[in-house]
């Protein structure tokens, strides 16, 4: 009996009138957990009843505690007829099950009814007494923390990042059970809500068990989804990244981590297998040479190993790249090698994270994705969801082999999704192939990585751009150049990723949201034929989406995409593809060439003219975009020619590479054959359309930026004003002119208009940026397209706009140096360029000596200290400038930041008291998250039979979403939180039947409940001495790296 759940019903307020005669209500409450039910007394004739009940105690297994939601039903007592239900509250008690989070849930919860919406509120207090249970065969996983946030949560440190965890549970959908024919819509909706709540709990518990088996203590980037498969059932599935987290302030809590968590997750049955170590002696993958050598001579040599060689796409890597699979049998297994190959032993070396601790990400290969079309069949045995498991396993395998083909041993920013229409289901998975630093994947090897980090830090800021695959055996045609930053490694000309921009990446200018939109008509068909038709269309769609993205990226004058998310939605008679990503200009990658248009019939004069006109328009657009997004790649002055660092290729707009230096020339030119221009051939009207559509994308109005990553590259000075919103649009296509073009145009207009509306609506927030813009497309009916957007608008201070995204320390230093620019006669390149390619020999020497002498080559610290030295040096050499330097440095230090916010914060802080903040981001600008209280994962159904009276479909959905927000806020507040971060609306399924005056909507939302403190409220340990300040930050940075 390992847990005692205690519930007290305090009071109700604003209850609806249930008795028309007296205009009052005789309310009482049923509290149900598992199969036990308690009741309060009836509180007669009041809309604000004060029950003040005793503590209702439930003695339950912790397994049940995790699975079951607490169910509170408010009813109106009726002497003569059946009691009328007023509404329900489901409370997930999981947050009470781990020690660091909430200790009590107490607050006003909206009473929700699936037909009437919110009907008053009820004040409930919930507590859990948990007894320690050391039974290792236990079925529960209490204590494992869950985070929706796809980065290491702010007040934690990742000790080990174990890897991928997944699970799915299936059940029959109550909506499709025979009983649904005879029960009321309310009963049916409630059955569904209850079931999903139960299934989520079970899923979370099972995932937790897997995490415990891996010796982790948390799941980060937890993503849970529902597949409403209709007749064939209901699937709840979740993926996440198991980690061992350590709370930053309390280093005591430290779980002994196991060296190689090498269990095959799939094969660990929960009940049967008593020994979790069965597989620990499984084949490890020893590697000949684990050093990540980045010496210029062997630039491309990188280990690219993976556990499976089934597709035998193993790239031939230069030297020291033993890519031995499991089948390769055990080599001489050295201990260190074994620990380092931890990754290879995982069935799926996937990470749902999109942002990483510094140094974690070594290289990024590119986006990998896999899709498969399946025919749904009834799930026969809910306890053994083998089919669905097998489907996903297949897809994951494919992803893994793709990653391997890119010379990568891991996939980051991994996500999975489905699209279902009738009995056809498209399963999709995507991620970014990457090479990771094994240091985070197991513990105790920090010293082993030292040497490696030494080398790493040379290329740290551009390192992730460097190709992980073998140049001679490229998995796809790409044009390689030497990195524009370090000039030692090869980089591709464009880089697509699904992750957030690494914080240490050097970006020029600002980023922007880039979308590719595509529709394809498809014949209506049944079952097999339908699935085949879809499978046949998919590759073409993928290709076109990719082409569109590429074209738009070039049109923006940018060279990399982050946060790429390609969604393919299947409908009765069409397929839709929507790709969103944030384009940026990475300083390390070459300047993208323009777009060249070529006609097929060169003889026709007017045609020619038309083409050239078009070409001009495109060139103008590119130039305009470059200006708009402030893309001015630094031009390195003449004097460095002949310096040991290879000279960068001048790729500014007018000046095409005029002088190449040394031996690279030939190689570069070879690989660059057609690189500078991306040729679009206009050979038919389709292509013409494409070009037109390229040019129709309107940039956001001035003062607005948008991106789908967490924050906008190039903007740092966020104010605390945020506005999260959800916008839904449904359009009906006229069935007459359903051609691909018309469809494309409609879809394009829909998305563009939606964005325009958002810009218009939020114009009062200018200057602001729409962050984390998340588009979801669904095709609820034949001619309906539904687009759902969730994003957050954050204002920023225009005056203090900075050009680069850096860590705070760097930021301050950078600002300092910018401030001092004139005074110290710094060349601008000093600030905007990254250090390794820095042209000043003294600085470089200094850096090198520092790194080699100190032996602590944490790149951050290096840069930091050398910058300080540099500033000092410069300041001293130039007259009495030193005093002034000090002052400015102080201003720019974190303390200064706090002061700055002081100015703007108080009115906001006062005005927003009480309103729980909601944001899809993992942080709150201008505030510090001090505590994570647990995940919020809520599922609501709302149905109406009086659609017109509720304001039509728009009114209905608007009210429902507002109610969902209110309920999320109430639950967060009850946990003691004041914000929910990483908020996401995962599902919004809307069905209407206007003829019957009916509509139904299902919404699933999740996020992390947190406590935040405004930075202005935090007492900042203000240090008067700027250098000390910086140094302390540096040390801190060192600790966290």
């Amino acid at each position, binding site marked *: 009996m390992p847990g005692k759940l205690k519930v007290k019903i305090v009071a109700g307020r*604003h209850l609806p009138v249930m008795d028309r005669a007296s205009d009052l209500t005789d309310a009482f409450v049923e509290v149900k957990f598992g199969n036990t039910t308690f009741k309060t007394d009836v509180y007669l004739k009041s809309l604000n009843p004060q029950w003040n009940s005793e503590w209702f105690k439930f003695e339950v297994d912790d397994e049940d505690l995790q699975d079951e939601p607490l169910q509170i039903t408010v009813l109106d007592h009726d002497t003569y007829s059946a009691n009328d239900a007023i509404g329900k509250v489901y409370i997930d008690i999981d947050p009470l099950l781990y020690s660091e989070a909430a200790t009590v849930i107490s607050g006003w919860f909206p009473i929700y009814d699936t037909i009437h919406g*919110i009907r008053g509120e009820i004040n409930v207090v919930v507590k859990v007494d948990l007894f320690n249970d050391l039974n290792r065969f236990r079925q529960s996983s209490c204590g494992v923390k869950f985070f929706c946030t796809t980065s290491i949560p702010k007040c934690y440190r990742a000790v080990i990042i174990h890897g991928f965890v997944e699970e799915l549970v299936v059940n029959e959908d109550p909506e499709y059970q025979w009983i649904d024919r005879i029960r009321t819509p309310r009963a049916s909706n409630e059955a569904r809500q209850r079931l999903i709540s139960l299934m989520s709990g079970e899923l979370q518990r099972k995932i937790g068990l897997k995490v415990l088996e891996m010796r982790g203590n948390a799941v980060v980037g937890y993503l849970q989804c529902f597949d409403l498969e209709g007749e064939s059932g209901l699937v709840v599935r979740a993926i996440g990244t198991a980690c061992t987290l350590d709370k930053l302030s309390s280093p005591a809590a430290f779980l002994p981590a196991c060296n190689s968590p090498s269990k095959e997750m799939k094969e660990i049955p929960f009940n049967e297998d008593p020994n979790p170590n069965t597989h620990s002696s499984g084949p490890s993958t020893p590697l000949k040479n684990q050093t990540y050598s980045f010496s210029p001579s062997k630039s491309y040599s990188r280990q690219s190993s993976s556990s499976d060689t089934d597709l035998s796409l193993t790239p031939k890597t230069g030297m020291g790249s033993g890519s031995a699979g499991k089948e390769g049998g055990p080599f001489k297994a050295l201990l260190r090698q074994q620990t380092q190959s931890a990754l290879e032993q995982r069935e799926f070396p996937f990470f749902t994270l999109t942002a990483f601790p510094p140094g974690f990400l070594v290289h990024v290969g590119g986006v990998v994705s896999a899709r498969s079309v399946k025919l749904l069949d009834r799930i026969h045995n809910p306890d053994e969801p083998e089919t669905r498991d097998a489907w996903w396993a297949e897809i994951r395998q494919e992803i893994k082999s793709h990653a391997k083909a890119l010379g990568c041993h891991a996939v980051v920013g991994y996500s999975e999704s489905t699209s279902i229409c009738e009995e056809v289901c498209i399963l999709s998975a995507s991620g970014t192939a990457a090479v990771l630093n094994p240091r985070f994947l197991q513990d105790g090897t920090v010293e082993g990585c030292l040497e490696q980090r030494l080398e790493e830090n040379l290329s740290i800021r551009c390192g992730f751009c460097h190709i992980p695959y073998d140049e001679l055996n490229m998995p796809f045609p790409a044009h390689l150049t030497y990195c524009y930053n370090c000039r030692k490694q090869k980089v591709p000309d464009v880089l697509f990723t699904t992750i957030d921009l690494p914080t240490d990446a050097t970006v020029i200018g600002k980023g922007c949201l880039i979308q590719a939109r595509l529709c394809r008509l498809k014949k209506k068909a049944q079952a097999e034929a339908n699935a085949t038709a879809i499978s046949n269309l998919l590759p073409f769609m993928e290709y076109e989406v990719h082409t569109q993205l590429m074209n738009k990226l070039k049109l923006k004058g940018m060279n990399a995409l982050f946060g790429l998310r390609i969604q393919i939605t299947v409908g009765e008679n069409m397929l839709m593809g929507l790709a969103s990503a944030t384009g940026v200009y990475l300083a390390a990658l070459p300047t993208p060439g323009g777009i060249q248009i070529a006609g097929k019939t060169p003889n026709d004069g007017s045609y020619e003219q038309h083409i050239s006109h078009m070409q001009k328009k495109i060139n103008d657009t590119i130039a305009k975009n470059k200006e708009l997004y402030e893309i001015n790649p630094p031009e390195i002055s003449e004097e460095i020619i002949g310096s040991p660092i290879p000279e960068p290729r001048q790729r500014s707009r007018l000046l095409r590479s005029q002088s190449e230096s040394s031996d690279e020339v030939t190689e570069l030119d070879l690989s660059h054959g057609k690189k500078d221009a991306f040729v679009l051939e206009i050979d038919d009207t389709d292509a013409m359309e494409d070009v037109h559509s390229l040019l129709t994308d309107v940039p956001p*109005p001035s003062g607005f930026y948008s991106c789908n990553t967490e924050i906008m590259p190039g903007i740092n000075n966020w104010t605390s*004003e945020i*506005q*999260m*919103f*959800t*916008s*839904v*649009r*449904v*359009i*009906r*296509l*006229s069935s007459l002119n359903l051609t691909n073009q018309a469809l494309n145009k*409609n879809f394009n*207009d*829909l998305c563009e*208009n939606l964005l*325009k*509306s*958002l*810009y*218009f*609506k*939020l*114009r*009062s927030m200018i200057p602001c940026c729409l962050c984390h813009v998340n588009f979801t497309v669904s095709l609820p009916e034949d001619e*309906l397209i*539904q687009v759902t957007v969730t994003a957050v608008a954050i204002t920023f201070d225009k005056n203090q706009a900075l050009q680069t995204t850096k860590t705070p320390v760097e930021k301050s230093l950078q600002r300092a140096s910018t401030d001092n620019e004139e005074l110290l006669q710094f060349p601008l390149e000093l600030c905007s360029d990254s250090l390794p390619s820095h042209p000043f020999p003294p600085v470089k020497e200094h850096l090198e000596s520092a790194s080699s002498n100190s032996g602590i080559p944490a790149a951050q610290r290096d840069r930091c200290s050398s910058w300080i030295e540099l500033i000092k040096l410069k300041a001293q050499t130039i007259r009495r400038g030193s005093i002034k330097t000090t002052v400015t440095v102080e201003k720019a230090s974190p303390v200064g930041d706090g002061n700055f916010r002081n100015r703007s914060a108080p*009115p*906001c802080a006062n*005005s*927003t008291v*009480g*309103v729980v*903040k*909601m944001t899809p981001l993992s942080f709150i600008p201008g505030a510090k998250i001090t505590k994570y209280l647990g995940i919020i994962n809520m599922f609501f159904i709302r149905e109406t039979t009086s659609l017109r009276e509720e*304001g039509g*479909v*728009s*009114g209905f*959905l*608007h*009210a429902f*979403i*507002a*109610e969902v*927000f*209110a309920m999320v*806020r*109430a639950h967060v507040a009850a946990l003691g939180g004041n914000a929910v971060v990483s908020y996401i609306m995962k599902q919004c399924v*809307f069905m209407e039947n206007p003829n019957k005056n009916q509509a139904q909507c299902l919404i699933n939302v999740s996020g992390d409940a947190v406590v935040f403190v405004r930075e202005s409220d935090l007492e900042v340990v203000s240090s008067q001495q700027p250098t000390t300040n910086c140094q302390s930050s540096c040390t801190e940075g060192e600790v966290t790296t």
Partner: protein
Amino acid sequence: MTSELDIFVGNTTLIDEDVYRLWLDGYSVTDAVALRVRSGILEQTGATAAVLQSDTMDHYRTFHMLERLLHIPPSRQALLIERYPGPARPPFLSFVGGYYAFDEAFVREVLGKKLSKGTKKDLDDISTKTGITLKSCRRQFDNFKRVFKVVEEMRGSLVDNIQQHFLLSDRLARDYAAIVFFANNRFETGKKKLQYLSFGDFAFCAELMIQNWTLGAVGEAPIDPDSQMDDMDMDLDKEFLQDLKELKVLVADKDLLDLHKSLVCTALRGKLGVFSEMEANFKNLSRGLVNVAAKLTHNKDVRDLFVDLVEKFVEPCRSDHWPLSDVRFFLNQYSASVHSLDGFRHQALWDRYMGTLRGCLLRLYHD
């Protein structure tokens, strides 16, 4: 391509002041869009007409939903803030304030009328007369009625009650107190003679009367709350009205009247530009003012209070072209000199009556 559904829901509710104004004024979406286009917003923001249409629709829907919540019993209006929190509190209050704001022209039409179905039927005419859309008239009328209904049954300060239950600003709460007070006492304000008076004039008088002539004004909390059936602030103090009859002696007793006149005349001689006119009219004016007081026991005469005041005092003075300063001198002296009348015993009563009346008359005395 037709838009079936188009919504925008924020964590905090954004309210566009301009659209809100248009909505309050009762414009249809189409009209509102046309007006917004005319305001040049498209050029300013570079938006398209479709965007504007969508934005306007969305705002109208939001307002409509907020309106529904505004209509639920006021004790539950906290819900409104919970369900649709504003980005900050002040703008939210301005939303409620905006909703309860009224047009001067409209309120003048219904001021003092019974807030009943009958009056509601006349809204058509009022709408035509004032040029305010019927929708807006209805909203304003319903607001008056809603506030009236709620505070009718409440004790304590009228202004405070309104302010607390409807989240209104102090200024607006005072105005509503006046409206409620007028509606409750059914003061006639629609007569032609009274047309020159603004709502502000009446509100000013109402405030003075609430402060001095109601039960609440006396400050004596009823000992047994159940026996106290009258509303503290909304009903005039019946006992006080009854007592006012005693003032009649001031004009009925000829000696007293003459003495009063001579006192006033002595004090004002040489100070008043219109002295001779005053001297000639004194008895008439005094009779008028005292008779008004004596009649207040009848409900009908209470209703005609303002008509009487204008007829018996304002108009005679105005026809003799008294400047306002002279009116002030006269009224001050007129009420003060009663204290010197030895035979008069109702000094306190006189002060309570004249103190308020003096303020009202001065406010009412203009063109």
